[in-house]
């Protein structure tokens, strides 16, 4: 596989990651969100392996396998179990105006392209063109956390943001040192468990996972 082809393949995978990020913004059903999140993890894992091959960085293979195990299998599984345990029957979430959110998303993509274009000029890496996509994925995850009301979907938005950060690290500097990546992976795993505990607490206190309920903490009627 020549380096040129690997770079093209990485571009395609970056485009797919961006597409799944937009899919997460638009998806109404919780199980659909989980699937899209798992797909995003899969594309991220393949992309990391491709970059590892193109750049000749062995440790990226390990991060790729780590991503595959954690973000494609373990995290979606944990969230799936949580959704069943919490008994979220109403799995469809009403959203505020999807087309408007999409337009905001497009604006964010253009913004991150503008923001990263100096880096693109300076960088000499094979992956320099995907930095903008990585930043856009982070921003789209953030947008998802802002526009959603349900706690579980906000967590998925947070994890998508983390995907974007990981992708940014891979495309800007060929990945962080392995120790850091292992630490981050462990953090995410622990975070998922803590989220689970929090979900149960939120539900016992408010009878719902809708975070808008939390605005009514005051003792007024």
């Amino acid at each position, binding site marked *: 596989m020549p380096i040129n*082809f690997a770079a*093209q*393949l990485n*571009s*395609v995978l*970056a*485009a*797919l990651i*961006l*597409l799944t990020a*937009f899919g997460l913004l*638009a998806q109404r059903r919780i199980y659909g969100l989980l699937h899209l999140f798992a797909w995003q993890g899969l594309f991220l894992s393949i992309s990391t392996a491709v970059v590892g091959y193109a750049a000749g960085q062995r440790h990226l293979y390990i991060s790729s396998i780590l991503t595959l195990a954690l973000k494609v299998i373990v995290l979606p599984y944990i969230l799936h179990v949580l959704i069943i345990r919490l008994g979220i029957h109403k799995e469809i979430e009403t959203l505020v105006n*999807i*087309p408007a959110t*999409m337009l905001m*998303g*497009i604006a964010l*993509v*253009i913004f991150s*392209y503008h923001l990263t274009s100096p880096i693109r000029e300076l960088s000499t890496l094979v992956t320099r*063109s*995907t930095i*903008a*996509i990585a930043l856009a994925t982070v921003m789209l995850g953030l947008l998802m956390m802002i526009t959603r009301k349900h706690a579980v979907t906000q967590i998925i938005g947070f994890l998508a943001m983390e995907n974007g950060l990981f992708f940014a690290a891979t495309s800007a500097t060929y990945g962080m040192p392995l120790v850091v990546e292992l630490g981050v992976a462990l953090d995410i795993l622990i975070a998922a468990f803590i989220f689970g505990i929090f979900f149960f607490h939120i539900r016992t206190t408010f009878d719902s996972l809708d975070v808008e309920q939390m605005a009514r903490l005051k003792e007024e009627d």
Partner: protein
Amino acid sequence: MSEILSYLLEGVQILLLLSAAPVFTGWVRTVRCWLQGRTTAGIFQPYRDLTKLFYKDIVLAENASWIFRFTPYLVFGAAVLAGAIIPILSVDLPLSTTADVIALVALFAMARFFTALAGMDVGTAFGGMGSSREMTIASLAEPAMLMAVFTVSLVSKSTSLSQMVQVIGHGQLILRPSLAFALLAFVLITLAETGRVPVDNPVTHLELTMIHEGMILEYSGRHLALIEWAGMMKLFLFAVLGIASFFPWGIAEAGNLITLPMALLFLMTKLGLAGAGLVLIETGLAKMRLFRVPEFLGSAFLFATLGMLSYFMLE
């Protein structure tokens, strides 16, 4: 000499468009029958329908104005003219230099505008309803269509269709996410523009859901035949436009007559696959509520814009 030849080719292409469009529609219907386990009427049934309509008398409403009588000819003419611009068999088209892809979108828009006017002309409730719905959909589909077309133009650095075919078909094979996004957007727009299942259903006259059928409900006889024929050509043209923009391999080059039979063979294969793909989409999806259509076309616009952005960001 070569000029005469290219004019001849142009004529052959228009004849092909006129004759093959009903066959393509027949093929789509046949595949759909196969998938639904029904007996087919054969791929030549649209011809018989058209002949029957041509023999019938026209029933014209008393208050129908010239717009109503003029529209079928205009719609038909626009479709034929569009077929003269798109490289179906060969890129060597004299008319192709007179109009680029933006003019092509405008041609479709003009035909639609007059159909909508004719729908309101007689003053029946269904015509007005169909017209208003059609214009709603058009106002959302056209920007997305232009975006998708611009993405292909950016890649090939030209808005002339012949030029686009030459650049994409004969350049080296590169994985281009921008073209993949544009293709996705184009498929969604084709479904909306040609009135296929998730947006409109071409086979029913169910009062509450019809869009295109609502507008042409008052037409009869040869007027109806012309409009139906133009509708078939529109489906054929969108398929050919998609082939020319995204899969142009096999379209004959300028001044190369020997490859024409091969080009025809390629075209038939690609059209057969395109028709089967269309049927798979149509049988796999349910018709959506009218109020979901903006979301559907919004996602088409999103894909087209992402295609354009990924051209700048990734390529």
